[in-house]
Protein backbone atom coordinates (compact mmCIF):
# COMPACT_ATOMS: atom_id res chain seq x y z
CA UNK A 1 0.00 0.00 0.00
CA UNK A 2 1.22 3.47 -0.80
CA UNK A 3 2.43 5.47 2.15
CA UNK A 4 1.19 6.87 4.41
CA UNK A 5 -0.82 3.84 5.38
CA UNK A 6 -3.77 4.63 7.57
CA UNK A 7 -5.92 2.44 9.75
CA UNK A 8 -8.73 2.96 7.26
CA UNK A 9 -6.56 1.67 4.43
CA UNK A 10 -5.59 -1.35 6.48
CA UNK A 11 -9.24 -2.16 7.14
CA UNK A 12 -10.07 -1.62 3.46
CA UNK A 13 -7.42 -4.17 2.54
CA UNK A 14 -8.82 -6.52 5.17
CA UNK A 15 -12.25 -6.21 3.58
CA UNK A 16 -10.89 -7.48 0.29
CA UNK A 17 -9.16 -10.51 1.76
CA UNK A 18 -11.49 -11.31 4.66
CA UNK A 19 -14.86 -9.57 4.14
CA UNK A 20 -16.56 -11.52 6.92
CA UNK A 21 -13.98 -10.23 9.37
CA UNK A 22 -14.03 -6.71 8.02
CA UNK A 23 -17.77 -6.24 8.41
CA UNK A 24 -17.45 -7.28 12.01
CA UNK A 25 -15.01 -4.45 12.60
CA UNK A 26 -16.86 -1.75 10.71
CA UNK A 27 -20.52 -1.45 9.77
CA UNK A 28 -21.93 -0.65 6.32
CA UNK A 29 -21.25 3.06 6.78
CA UNK A 30 -17.58 2.38 7.44
CA UNK A 31 -17.91 3.32 11.10
CA UNK A 32 -15.91 1.34 13.60
CA UNK A 33 -18.31 -0.72 15.67
CA UNK A 34 -18.97 0.80 19.04
CA UNK A 35 -17.52 -2.00 21.14
CA UNK A 36 -14.47 -2.67 18.99
CA UNK A 37 -11.07 -1.12 19.58
CA UNK A 38 -8.28 -0.83 17.07
CA UNK A 39 -4.79 -0.32 18.38
CA UNK A 40 -1.83 0.98 16.43
CA UNK A 41 0.95 -0.42 18.50
CA UNK A 42 -0.05 0.48 22.05
CA UNK A 43 -2.29 3.38 21.02
CA UNK A 44 -6.05 3.25 20.60
CA UNK A 45 -6.85 4.85 17.28
CA UNK A 46 -9.69 6.74 18.94
CA UNK A 47 -7.06 8.62 20.92
CA UNK A 48 -5.23 9.53 17.74
CA UNK A 49 -6.84 10.23 14.38
CA UNK A 50 -9.45 7.46 14.22
CA UNK A 51 -9.46 5.78 10.83
CA UNK A 52 -7.04 8.42 9.59
CA UNK A 53 -4.39 7.34 12.06
CA UNK A 54 -1.13 6.65 10.27
CA UNK A 55 0.35 3.21 10.77
CA UNK A 56 4.14 3.40 10.85
CA UNK A 57 5.91 0.69 8.89
CA UNK A 58 6.31 -2.47 10.90
CA UNK A 59 3.74 -1.47 13.49
CA UNK A 60 1.20 -4.04 14.60
CA UNK A 61 -2.47 -3.18 14.20
CA UNK A 62 -4.64 -5.05 16.67
CA UNK A 63 -8.41 -5.36 16.60
CA UNK A 64 -9.79 -6.22 20.02
CA UNK A 65 -13.28 -6.51 21.48
CA UNK A 66 -13.84 -3.73 23.98
CA UNK A 67 -14.70 -4.53 27.57
CA UNK A 68 -17.67 -2.19 27.19
CA UNK A 69 -19.34 -4.82 25.02
CA UNK A 70 -19.61 -7.19 27.94
Amino acid at each position, binding site marked *: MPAPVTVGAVLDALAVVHPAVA*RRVRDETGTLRRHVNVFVGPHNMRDLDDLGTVVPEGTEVAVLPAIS*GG
Partner: protein
Amino acid sequence: MISRMKSPRVCSAPVPVTTRHCTDEARRNVVPPAPPLYYRFMAAPEGLDASTGDVVVLLGTTKGLFAMSAGQDRAHWAVAGPWFRGEEVYAAALDCRHGRARLLVGATSPHWGPSVYRSDDLGASWAEPEPETLAFPEQAGAAVARVWQLQPAGDAQPDVVYAGAEPAALFRSDDGGETFRLDENLWGHEHRPHWQPGGGGLCLHTVVPDPGGGSRLGVAVSAAGFYRTLDGTTWEAANSGIRAPFLPDPTPEFGQCVHKVDCHPAEPDTLFLQHHWGVYRSDDFGGRWDEVGADSLSSTFGFPIVADPNRPKTAFVVPLTSDEFRCVPDGRVQVYRTGDGGVSWRGLGKGLPQSDAYLTVLRDGLSADSLDPTGLYLGTRTGEVFASADAGESWRELARHLPPVLLVKTAVLP
Protein backbone atom coordinates in the same frame (compact mmCIF):
# COMPACT_ATOMS: atom_id res chain seq x y z
CA MET B 1 -36.12 -37.31 5.71
CA ILE B 2 -34.07 -36.22 8.63
CA SER B 3 -32.33 -38.95 10.58
CA ARG B 4 -32.94 -39.20 14.25
CA MET B 5 -29.73 -38.87 16.15
CA LYS B 6 -29.02 -41.51 18.76
CA SER B 7 -29.43 -39.94 22.13
CA PRO B 8 -31.67 -40.39 25.15
CA ARG B 9 -34.68 -38.14 25.16
CA VAL B 10 -35.43 -37.16 28.68
CA CYS B 11 -35.62 -38.06 32.28
CA SER B 12 -37.64 -36.26 34.89
CA ALA B 13 -37.51 -35.72 38.60
CA PRO B 14 -40.31 -34.55 40.85
CA VAL B 15 -40.10 -31.04 42.18
CA PRO B 16 -41.97 -30.06 45.33
CA VAL B 17 -44.63 -27.40 45.02
CA THR B 18 -43.41 -24.18 46.48
CA THR B 19 -45.09 -23.46 49.78
CA ARG B 20 -43.72 -20.04 50.48
CA HIS B 21 -46.55 -17.60 51.20
CA CYS B 22 -49.10 -20.43 50.83
CA THR B 23 -51.90 -20.94 53.30
CA ASP B 24 -53.33 -24.39 53.77
CA GLU B 25 -56.31 -23.37 51.68
CA ALA B 26 -54.18 -22.07 48.92
CA ARG B 27 -52.04 -25.17 48.98
CA ARG B 28 -55.05 -27.42 48.49
CA ASN B 29 -56.19 -25.34 45.53
CA VAL B 30 -52.88 -25.09 43.81
CA VAL B 31 -52.45 -27.29 40.81
CA PRO B 32 -49.00 -28.70 41.30
CA PRO B 33 -46.83 -27.75 38.41
CA ALA B 34 -45.63 -30.63 36.37
CA PRO B 35 -42.10 -31.46 37.30
CA PRO B 36 -39.73 -29.72 35.04
CA LEU B 37 -38.58 -32.14 32.44
CA TYR B 38 -34.96 -32.76 32.79
CA TYR B 39 -33.58 -32.43 29.38
CA ARG B 40 -30.36 -33.58 28.02
CA PHE B 41 -28.51 -30.66 26.63
CA MET B 42 -26.90 -31.55 23.39
CA ALA B 43 -23.97 -29.30 23.07
CA ALA B 44 -23.70 -27.62 19.76
CA PRO B 45 -22.40 -28.39 17.15
CA GLU B 46 -24.11 -31.80 17.28
CA GLY B 47 -27.32 -30.26 16.09
CA LEU B 48 -30.85 -30.79 17.17
CA ASP B 49 -32.18 -34.27 17.85
CA ALA B 50 -35.26 -34.34 15.66
CA SER B 51 -36.72 -36.23 12.74
CA THR B 52 -39.65 -36.12 10.37
CA GLY B 53 -42.91 -35.23 12.08
CA ASP B 54 -41.28 -33.90 15.23
CA VAL B 55 -42.23 -30.57 16.72
CA VAL B 56 -39.35 -28.14 16.92
CA VAL B 57 -39.44 -25.08 19.15
CA LEU B 58 -36.77 -22.47 18.55
CA LEU B 59 -35.88 -20.28 21.54
CA GLY B 60 -34.00 -17.10 20.80
CA THR B 61 -32.48 -15.64 23.96
CA THR B 62 -30.19 -12.83 24.99
CA LYS B 63 -27.33 -15.31 25.15
CA GLY B 64 -27.87 -17.52 22.13
CA LEU B 65 -30.24 -19.87 20.39
CA PHE B 66 -31.73 -22.92 22.05
CA ALA B 67 -34.03 -25.43 20.42
CA MET B 68 -36.38 -28.07 21.75
CA SER B 69 -37.85 -31.02 19.93
CA ALA B 70 -40.41 -33.71 20.68
CA GLY B 71 -42.57 -36.24 18.96
CA GLN B 72 -46.11 -35.38 18.07
CA ASP B 73 -47.28 -36.47 21.50
CA ARG B 74 -45.33 -33.43 22.76
CA ALA B 75 -44.59 -35.31 25.96
CA HIS B 76 -40.84 -35.63 26.13
CA TRP B 77 -38.47 -32.98 24.98
CA ALA B 78 -34.83 -32.76 24.04
CA VAL B 79 -33.03 -29.46 24.20
CA ALA B 80 -30.02 -28.37 22.23
CA GLY B 81 -27.90 -25.32 22.43
CA PRO B 82 -26.86 -22.73 22.87
CA TRP B 83 -25.66 -21.83 19.43
CA PHE B 84 -24.26 -18.32 18.98
CA ARG B 85 -23.18 -18.18 22.59
CA GLY B 86 -23.31 -14.70 24.03
CA GLU B 87 -25.25 -13.24 21.11
CA GLU B 88 -28.77 -11.90 21.13
CA VAL B 89 -31.07 -13.94 18.93
CA TYR B 90 -34.14 -11.87 18.17
CA ALA B 91 -34.91 -13.59 14.88
CA ALA B 92 -35.11 -17.21 13.85
CA ALA B 93 -37.17 -19.41 11.61
CA LEU B 94 -37.35 -23.01 10.60
CA ASP B 95 -38.25 -22.96 6.94
CA CYS B 96 -40.10 -26.17 6.17
CA ARG B 97 -41.51 -25.24 2.82
CA HIS B 98 -41.27 -27.79 0.05
CA GLY B 99 -39.75 -30.42 2.28
CA ARG B 100 -36.72 -28.47 3.37
CA ALA B 101 -35.69 -27.94 6.99
CA ARG B 102 -33.58 -24.81 6.92
CA LEU B 103 -32.76 -22.98 10.10
CA LEU B 104 -32.41 -19.23 9.69
CA VAL B 105 -31.06 -17.16 12.53
CA GLY B 106 -30.50 -13.45 12.99
CA ALA B 107 -27.93 -13.06 15.76
CA THR B 108 -26.27 -9.92 17.08
CA SER B 109 -22.91 -10.00 18.75
CA PRO B 110 -22.41 -7.14 21.21
CA HIS B 111 -18.97 -6.63 19.71
CA TRP B 112 -19.14 -7.74 16.11
CA GLY B 113 -22.66 -6.71 15.14
CA PRO B 114 -25.52 -8.55 13.45
CA SER B 115 -25.60 -11.23 10.83
CA VAL B 116 -27.91 -13.87 9.40
CA TYR B 117 -26.93 -17.52 9.40
CA ARG B 118 -28.47 -20.64 7.93
CA SER B 119 -28.21 -24.35 8.62
CA ASP B 120 -29.55 -27.22 6.53
CA ASP B 121 -28.65 -29.91 9.07
CA LEU B 122 -30.57 -28.72 12.13
CA GLY B 123 -27.69 -26.78 13.56
CA ALA B 124 -24.78 -29.17 13.09
CA SER B 125 -23.18 -26.64 10.76
CA TRP B 126 -23.88 -23.07 9.78
CA ALA B 127 -23.23 -20.89 6.78
CA GLU B 128 -22.89 -17.15 6.42
CA PRO B 129 -22.89 -16.30 2.74
CA GLU B 130 -20.34 -14.02 1.19
CA PRO B 131 -19.83 -11.27 0.47
CA GLU B 132 -22.72 -10.13 2.68
CA THR B 133 -25.83 -11.72 4.08
CA LEU B 134 -28.00 -8.83 5.11
CA ALA B 135 -26.70 -5.30 4.92
CA PHE B 136 -27.66 -1.87 3.69
CA PRO B 137 -26.31 -0.80 0.33
CA GLU B 138 -23.73 1.95 0.53
CA GLN B 139 -26.06 4.63 -0.76
CA ALA B 140 -28.52 4.04 2.09
CA GLY B 141 -26.11 5.59 4.57
CA ALA B 142 -27.29 3.28 7.33
CA ALA B 143 -26.19 0.19 9.16
CA VAL B 144 -28.21 -2.73 10.41
CA ALA B 145 -28.35 -2.60 14.19
CA ARG B 146 -30.30 -5.80 14.67
CA VAL B 147 -32.32 -8.34 12.71
CA TRP B 148 -35.73 -8.46 14.36
CA GLN B 149 -37.62 -10.96 12.24
CA LEU B 150 -37.07 -13.68 9.69
CA GLN B 151 -40.32 -14.58 8.00
CA PRO B 152 -40.63 -17.15 5.24
CA ALA B 153 -43.36 -16.29 2.77
CA GLY B 154 -46.20 -18.68 2.02
CA ASP B 155 -45.91 -21.96 0.17
CA ALA B 156 -46.68 -20.24 -3.11
CA GLN B 157 -43.33 -18.40 -2.85
CA PRO B 158 -41.09 -21.13 -1.46
CA ASP B 159 -37.83 -19.28 -1.87
CA VAL B 160 -38.93 -15.92 -0.51
CA VAL B 161 -37.85 -14.95 2.99
CA TYR B 162 -38.44 -11.54 4.50
CA ALA B 163 -36.29 -9.95 7.16
CA GLY B 164 -37.27 -7.10 9.40
CA ALA B 165 -34.42 -5.03 10.74
CA GLU B 166 -33.51 -2.00 12.79
CA PRO B 167 -33.67 0.83 11.83
CA ALA B 168 -37.09 0.00 10.43
CA ALA B 169 -36.01 -1.68 7.22
CA LEU B 170 -37.43 -4.55 5.23
CA PHE B 171 -35.20 -6.92 3.34
CA ARG B 172 -36.23 -9.66 0.97
CA SER B 173 -34.50 -12.85 -0.10
CA ASP B 174 -35.43 -14.79 -3.22
CA ASP B 175 -33.01 -17.64 -2.58
CA GLY B 176 -34.20 -19.08 0.68
CA GLY B 177 -32.34 -16.67 2.92
CA GLU B 178 -28.91 -16.79 1.34
CA THR B 179 -28.86 -13.21 0.12
CA PHE B 180 -31.08 -10.26 0.91
CA ARG B 181 -31.82 -6.94 -0.70
CA LEU B 182 -33.31 -3.83 0.82
CA ASP B 183 -36.86 -2.83 0.00
CA GLU B 184 -35.96 0.62 -1.27
CA ASN B 185 -39.58 1.75 -1.52
CA LEU B 186 -40.27 1.34 2.17
CA TRP B 187 -36.82 2.69 3.03
CA GLY B 188 -37.60 5.85 1.10
CA HIS B 189 -41.09 6.37 2.49
CA GLU B 190 -41.95 10.01 3.12
CA HIS B 191 -43.01 9.25 6.70
CA ARG B 192 -39.64 7.86 7.70
CA PRO B 193 -38.07 11.10 8.96
CA HIS B 194 -40.97 11.38 11.41
CA TRP B 195 -40.86 7.85 12.79
CA GLN B 196 -40.00 7.66 16.44
CA PRO B 197 -38.49 4.58 18.12
CA GLY B 198 -40.27 2.47 20.65
CA GLY B 199 -38.69 1.26 23.86
CA GLY B 200 -36.73 -1.40 22.00
CA GLY B 201 -35.60 0.84 19.19
CA LEU B 202 -36.98 1.73 15.76
CA CYS B 203 -37.60 -1.84 14.76
CA LEU B 204 -39.45 -3.51 11.92
CA HIS B 205 -40.39 -6.51 13.96
CA THR B 206 -43.24 -8.15 12.09
CA VAL B 207 -43.78 -9.13 8.48
CA VAL B 208 -47.14 -10.41 7.28
CA PRO B 209 -46.85 -12.01 3.84
CA ASP B 210 -49.86 -12.82 1.72
CA PRO B 211 -50.39 -16.55 2.28
CA GLY B 212 -51.61 -16.89 -1.28
CA GLY B 213 -48.35 -15.61 -2.71
CA GLY B 214 -49.66 -12.35 -4.03
CA SER B 215 -47.89 -9.02 -3.91
CA ARG B 216 -49.72 -7.89 -0.79
CA LEU B 217 -47.51 -7.50 2.26
CA GLY B 218 -47.77 -5.90 5.69
CA VAL B 219 -45.14 -4.83 8.19
CA ALA B 220 -45.27 -3.51 11.72
CA VAL B 221 -42.82 -0.95 13.05
CA SER B 222 -42.40 0.29 16.60
CA ALA B 223 -43.29 3.02 16.76
CA ALA B 224 -44.46 3.95 13.28
CA GLY B 225 -47.41 1.58 13.05
CA PHE B 226 -48.67 -0.90 10.47
CA TYR B 227 -47.74 -0.33 6.86
CA ARG B 228 -48.91 -2.32 3.88
CA THR B 229 -48.38 -2.63 0.18
CA LEU B 230 -51.10 -4.03 -2.05
CA ASP B 231 -49.05 -4.01 -5.25
CA GLY B 232 -45.64 -4.90 -3.86
CA THR B 233 -44.26 -1.46 -4.60
CA THR B 234 -46.25 1.35 -3.02
CA TRP B 235 -46.36 1.46 0.77
CA GLU B 236 -49.04 3.16 2.82
CA ALA B 237 -49.70 3.64 6.50
CA ALA B 238 -52.62 1.43 7.52
CA ASN B 239 -53.51 2.42 11.07
CA SER B 240 -57.05 3.72 10.73
CA GLY B 241 -58.93 3.02 13.95
CA ILE B 242 -55.90 2.29 16.17
CA ARG B 243 -55.84 4.69 19.06
CA ALA B 244 -52.53 6.01 20.32
CA PRO B 245 -53.24 7.57 23.75
CA PHE B 246 -49.60 8.52 24.11
CA LEU B 247 -49.83 11.06 21.26
CA PRO B 248 -51.62 14.44 21.19
CA ASP B 249 -53.78 13.23 18.33
CA PRO B 250 -55.03 9.85 19.54
CA THR B 251 -55.86 8.65 16.02
CA PRO B 252 -52.92 9.75 13.86
CA GLU B 253 -52.15 8.44 10.42
CA PHE B 254 -48.99 6.85 11.77
CA GLY B 255 -46.95 6.75 14.96
CA GLN B 256 -48.81 3.89 16.59
CA CYS B 257 -46.72 1.43 18.56
CA VAL B 258 -47.84 -1.84 17.06
CA HIS B 259 -46.44 -4.72 19.06
CA LYS B 260 -47.47 -7.68 16.94
CA VAL B 261 -49.72 -8.71 14.07
CA ASP B 262 -50.79 -12.18 13.02
CA CYS B 263 -53.28 -13.80 10.68
CA HIS B 264 -54.65 -17.17 9.75
CA PRO B 265 -53.73 -18.41 6.25
CA ALA B 266 -57.32 -19.50 5.57
CA GLU B 267 -58.60 -15.96 6.20
CA PRO B 268 -55.78 -13.77 4.91
CA ASP B 269 -57.82 -10.58 4.99
CA THR B 270 -58.32 -10.86 8.75
CA LEU B 271 -55.50 -9.58 10.90
CA PHE B 272 -55.17 -9.58 14.67
CA LEU B 273 -53.07 -6.84 16.22
CA GLN B 274 -51.72 -6.21 19.70
CA HIS B 275 -51.05 -2.52 20.19
CA HIS B 276 -49.42 -0.57 22.98
CA TRP B 277 -52.80 -0.51 24.67
CA GLY B 278 -55.52 -2.27 22.74
CA VAL B 279 -56.17 -5.43 20.80
CA TYR B 280 -57.53 -4.89 17.32
CA ARG B 281 -58.89 -6.80 14.37
CA SER B 282 -59.04 -5.87 10.71
CA ASP B 283 -61.05 -7.71 8.09
CA ASP B 284 -59.52 -5.94 5.11
CA PHE B 285 -55.80 -6.44 5.65
CA GLY B 286 -55.35 -3.28 7.62
CA GLY B 287 -57.65 -0.88 5.81
CA ARG B 288 -59.68 -0.41 8.99
CA TRP B 289 -59.05 -1.63 12.54
CA ASP B 290 -61.59 -2.16 15.31
CA GLU B 291 -60.68 -2.61 18.95
CA VAL B 292 -61.82 -5.93 20.39
CA GLY B 293 -61.94 -7.57 23.77
CA ALA B 294 -61.59 -4.54 26.01
CA ASP B 295 -64.37 -5.86 28.24
CA SER B 296 -63.00 -9.35 28.68
CA LEU B 297 -59.23 -8.99 28.79
CA SER B 298 -57.51 -8.45 32.13
CA SER B 299 -55.41 -5.79 30.42
CA THR B 300 -55.30 -4.46 26.91
CA PHE B 301 -51.55 -3.95 27.14
CA GLY B 302 -49.34 -6.79 26.01
CA PHE B 303 -46.87 -7.86 23.38
CA PRO B 304 -47.56 -11.08 21.50
CA ILE B 305 -50.65 -12.07 19.57
CA VAL B 306 -50.86 -15.43 17.85
CA ALA B 307 -53.50 -16.79 15.52
CA ASP B 308 -54.41 -20.43 15.98
CA PRO B 309 -53.16 -22.22 12.85
CA ASN B 310 -56.15 -24.58 13.04
CA ARG B 311 -59.00 -22.16 13.73
CA PRO B 312 -59.31 -18.83 11.93
CA LYS B 313 -61.44 -17.19 14.62
CA THR B 314 -59.11 -18.21 17.44
CA ALA B 315 -56.18 -16.19 18.71
CA PHE B 316 -54.12 -15.82 21.86
CA VAL B 317 -52.65 -12.89 23.80
CA VAL B 318 -50.76 -12.48 27.06
CA PRO B 319 -52.01 -9.41 28.92
CA LEU B 320 -49.50 -7.42 30.94
CA THR B 321 -50.12 -4.73 33.52
CA SER B 322 -49.45 -1.37 31.94
CA ASP B 323 -46.59 -0.02 29.94
CA GLU B 324 -44.73 0.91 33.12
CA PHE B 325 -44.83 -2.38 35.02
CA ARG B 326 -45.01 -4.77 32.04
CA CYS B 327 -45.55 -7.86 34.17
CA VAL B 328 -48.56 -10.17 34.25
CA PRO B 329 -51.52 -8.76 36.19
CA ASP B 330 -51.92 -9.67 39.87
CA GLY B 331 -48.98 -12.02 39.84
CA ARG B 332 -50.89 -14.54 37.70
CA VAL B 333 -49.76 -15.82 34.33
CA GLN B 334 -52.72 -16.14 32.04
CA VAL B 335 -52.93 -16.64 28.33
CA TYR B 336 -56.17 -15.29 26.94
CA ARG B 337 -57.95 -17.02 24.08
CA THR B 338 -60.71 -15.88 21.77
CA GLY B 339 -62.76 -18.24 19.67
CA ASP B 340 -64.98 -15.64 18.05
CA GLY B 341 -62.58 -13.39 16.27
CA GLY B 342 -61.74 -11.29 19.30
CA VAL B 343 -65.22 -10.36 20.48
CA SER B 344 -64.73 -12.23 23.75
CA TRP B 345 -61.70 -13.65 25.52
CA ARG B 346 -61.17 -16.17 28.28
CA GLY B 347 -58.19 -16.37 30.59
CA LEU B 348 -56.39 -19.72 30.76
CA GLY B 349 -53.89 -20.43 33.49
CA LYS B 350 -54.05 -24.06 34.59
CA GLY B 351 -50.50 -25.13 35.13
CA LEU B 352 -49.09 -21.61 34.85
CA PRO B 353 -47.90 -19.72 37.93
CA GLN B 354 -50.93 -18.16 39.61
CA SER B 355 -49.32 -16.28 42.45
CA ASP B 356 -46.24 -14.17 43.06
CA ALA B 357 -45.31 -14.32 39.40
CA TYR B 358 -43.80 -11.22 37.83
CA LEU B 359 -43.18 -12.44 34.35
CA THR B 360 -42.89 -10.59 31.09
CA VAL B 361 -43.54 -12.12 27.68
CA LEU B 362 -42.07 -10.22 24.74
CA ARG B 363 -43.65 -9.74 21.32
CA ASP B 364 -42.28 -12.96 19.87
CA GLY B 365 -42.51 -14.92 23.12
CA LEU B 366 -45.62 -16.92 22.18
CA SER B 367 -45.94 -19.39 19.35
CA ALA B 368 -48.33 -22.08 18.15
CA ASP B 369 -47.69 -25.34 16.35
CA SER B 370 -49.91 -26.64 13.58
CA LEU B 371 -50.87 -29.90 15.27
CA ASP B 372 -54.44 -30.42 16.44
CA PRO B 373 -55.12 -29.75 19.29
CA THR B 374 -52.96 -26.70 18.84
CA GLY B 375 -49.77 -26.63 20.83
CA LEU B 376 -48.71 -23.35 22.40
CA TYR B 377 -45.28 -22.34 23.64
CA LEU B 378 -44.57 -19.43 25.93
CA GLY B 379 -41.13 -18.03 26.71
CA THR B 380 -40.52 -15.41 29.36
CA ARG B 381 -37.96 -12.75 29.99
CA THR B 382 -37.07 -14.62 33.17
CA GLY B 383 -35.98 -17.68 31.24
CA GLU B 384 -38.94 -20.02 31.63
CA VAL B 385 -40.64 -21.94 28.85
CA PHE B 386 -44.18 -23.22 29.24
CA ALA B 387 -46.11 -25.40 26.83
CA SER B 388 -49.69 -26.45 26.23
CA ALA B 389 -50.78 -29.38 24.08
CA ASP B 390 -54.46 -28.46 24.19
CA ALA B 391 -54.78 -24.93 22.86
CA GLY B 392 -54.07 -23.35 26.21
CA GLU B 393 -56.45 -25.32 28.42
CA SER B 394 -53.55 -26.64 30.46
CA TRP B 395 -49.87 -25.84 30.67
CA ARG B 396 -46.68 -27.24 32.03
CA GLU B 397 -43.19 -25.91 32.44
CA LEU B 398 -40.73 -27.23 29.90
CA ALA B 399 -37.63 -25.33 30.91
CA ARG B 400 -36.33 -22.85 33.41
CA HIS B 401 -33.13 -20.95 34.12
CA LEU B 402 -32.58 -20.08 30.48
CA PRO B 403 -31.36 -16.64 29.54
CA PRO B 404 -34.17 -14.14 28.88
CA VAL B 405 -36.30 -15.50 26.05
CA LEU B 406 -36.73 -13.09 23.15
CA LEU B 407 -38.28 -15.40 20.59
CA VAL B 408 -40.29 -18.59 20.35
CA LYS B 409 -40.85 -20.10 16.93
CA THR B 410 -42.44 -23.45 16.21
CA ALA B 411 -42.48 -25.82 13.27
CA VAL B 412 -43.29 -29.43 12.49
CA LEU B 413 -40.51 -31.07 10.55
CA PRO B 414 -41.58 -32.35 7.14
